[in-house]
């Protein structure tokens, strides 16, 4: 595939509708993300049916927009890449079916992109890291739906080193935030509140800290926050306590993250970098803690810019390009997969 070939990426696995056009050399020609936050806010979380309807409403328009911005016609593309799992099946079906339709119209190759692989390969996007991250590297995927340590050994070659035993870390942030009376999505709100709090005043548990392996667990931490809140009558939690709890929660998560990252790096001694992805990678305390863990080993921490950490279509197009380069395409009969672990990828 020559460097000027362009691929359209489509993302619709959760509550962001996104489209992007990338050149094979990594140049982003156009990108757009439409968040459905407002549609779901009243329900305190993502409602799958509302998400699926919104994806169908928005995706065709978004795709047309990025193509116009890129100055390309669909016939000019080298392929279509659409997130086909894991995620909410209703949205995956919209994105994959729409993408296949675009591909059918001009006989273009179709790539069914694994959303986790797309996050994992973002670090190899030229321009993000000098020369791009080199395989193998350690990926910490930290979002509302995923929480895992992954050895990224090549396109389609992943080993999951550890995962959460209960909640994903972003889910834990959302639940703690809800207990503290913060609006959904809780992560950013909790971080703002934590900034005014004293993390040392209310000591919260640090689940699995020091334990072998690099699994995660957050339910105990969440329960500790719930108990601290329950010591006060409903709605009577003093403002200072709220802030201190938020700060304590965030500090516990950050400490656990750094500890798990150290263990994961022990399991992948050849790692060239520690890469973080997912919405929680936007959290400053978590970033600082992970950067520390990487520095101890003399490794760079690669954290893509926030817009490429959260769900986006640039990463989908890039994963599509990496796969097309290797001749990896998918049949039009590929079925979207709500569950699609990284170690079940083909390459």
């Amino acid at each position, binding site marked *: 595939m020559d460097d000027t070939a362009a691929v359209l990426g489509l993302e619709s696995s959760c509550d962001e509708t996104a489209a992007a056009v990338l050149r094979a050399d990594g140049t982003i020609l156009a990108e757009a993300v439409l968040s459905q936050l407002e549609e779901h806010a*009243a*329900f*305190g979380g993502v*409602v799958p*049916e*509302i998400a*699926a*309807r919104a994806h*169908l409403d928005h*995706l*065709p328009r978004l*795709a*047309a927009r990025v193509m116009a911005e890129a100055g390309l016609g*669909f*016939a000019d593309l080298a392929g279509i890449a659409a997130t086909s799992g894991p995620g909410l*099946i*209703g949205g995956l*079906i*919209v*994105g*994959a*079916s*729409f*993408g*296949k*339709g*675009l*591909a*059918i*119209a*001009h*006989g273009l190759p179709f790539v069914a992109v694994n959303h986790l692989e797309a996050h994992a390969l973002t670090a190899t996007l030229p321009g993000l890291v000098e020369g791009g991250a080199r395989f193998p590297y350690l990926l910490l995927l930290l979002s509302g739906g995923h929480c895992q340590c992954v050895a990224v050994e090549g396109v389609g070659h992943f080993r999951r080193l550890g995962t959460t035993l209960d909640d994903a870390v972003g889910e834990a942030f959302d639940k703690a935030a809800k207990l503290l009376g913060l609006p959904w999505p809780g992560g950013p709100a909790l971080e703002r509140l934590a900034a005014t709090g004293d993390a040392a005043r209310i000591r919260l548990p640090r689940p699995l800290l020091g334990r072998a392996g690099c699994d995660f667990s957050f339910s105990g931490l969440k329960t500790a926050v719930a108990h601290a809140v329950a010591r006060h009558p409903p709605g009577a939690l003093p403002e200072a306590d709220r802030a201190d709890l938020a700060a304590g929660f965030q500090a516990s998560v950050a400490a656990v993250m750094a500890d798990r990252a150290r263990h994961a790096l022990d399991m992948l001694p050849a790692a060239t970098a520690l890469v973080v992805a997912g919405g929680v990678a936007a959290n400053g305390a978590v970033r600082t803690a992970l950067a520390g863990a990487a520095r101890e080993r003399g490794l760079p921490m690669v954290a893509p810019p926030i817009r490429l950490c959260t769900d986006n279509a640039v990463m989908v197009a890039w994963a599509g390009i990496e796969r097309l380069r290797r001749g990896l395409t998918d*049949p*039009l*009969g*590929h*079925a*979207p997969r709500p569950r699609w672990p990284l170690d079940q990828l083909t390459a």
Partner: protein
Amino acid sequence: MARILAIDGALARCSAALLEDGVLRAARAEAGDRGHAALLPPMAEAVLAEAGLRATQLDAVAVVVGPGGFTGLRAALALAEGIGLAAGRPLIGVTTGEALAAAVPEAVRASRAVWAVVDNRRGRVLLERIPPGSLAATALPEPVTEAELPLPRGPVAVAGDAALAVAARLAARGEDALLTESRLPDAAAAGLVAALRLAGRLPPREARPLYVEPPAVRPPG
């Protein structure tokens, strides 16, 4: 020559068809057990290939917009949107009832209204009433329980996946209700309706999903 690619995923079968001037050139249909999303795209590609046409040679892409299963509707609509957008061709919406009615023999439709009834899996049927001799639904589908079915204003032909129960219910009330064999919509029939729309012989209809029912969710508290 009007060339139409039609796609349906509304109920328990999915299908694609290619029509040229109202004549069926190629068709594929399958029970949707394995999932409409995986079945429909290869079907659309296959009917185009069999007819020897590229999507850019189409005059329109027709799609069944509902009522029906939300997921199957979206699989068909998103696929149609993709083909239509990339080929620069317009989309034409056809309701499930219109597609079902088009598969009822003309001699039957001439003297009977078609009542297309779709089981909404929430204890109701979605009723589309299509007047005798017509192929266009004149109103939005109405959600009704079988016990609350309205009174037909004349003889009816009942179609759709809830037809068996509805026809029996109407017959028990002494109504002239003919149970038809048109139980699941078909892309070929949808294509016929779309051809009439394209020719201006039926009122236009956007390719927007007809969910009828809101998402089954309530805000907390």
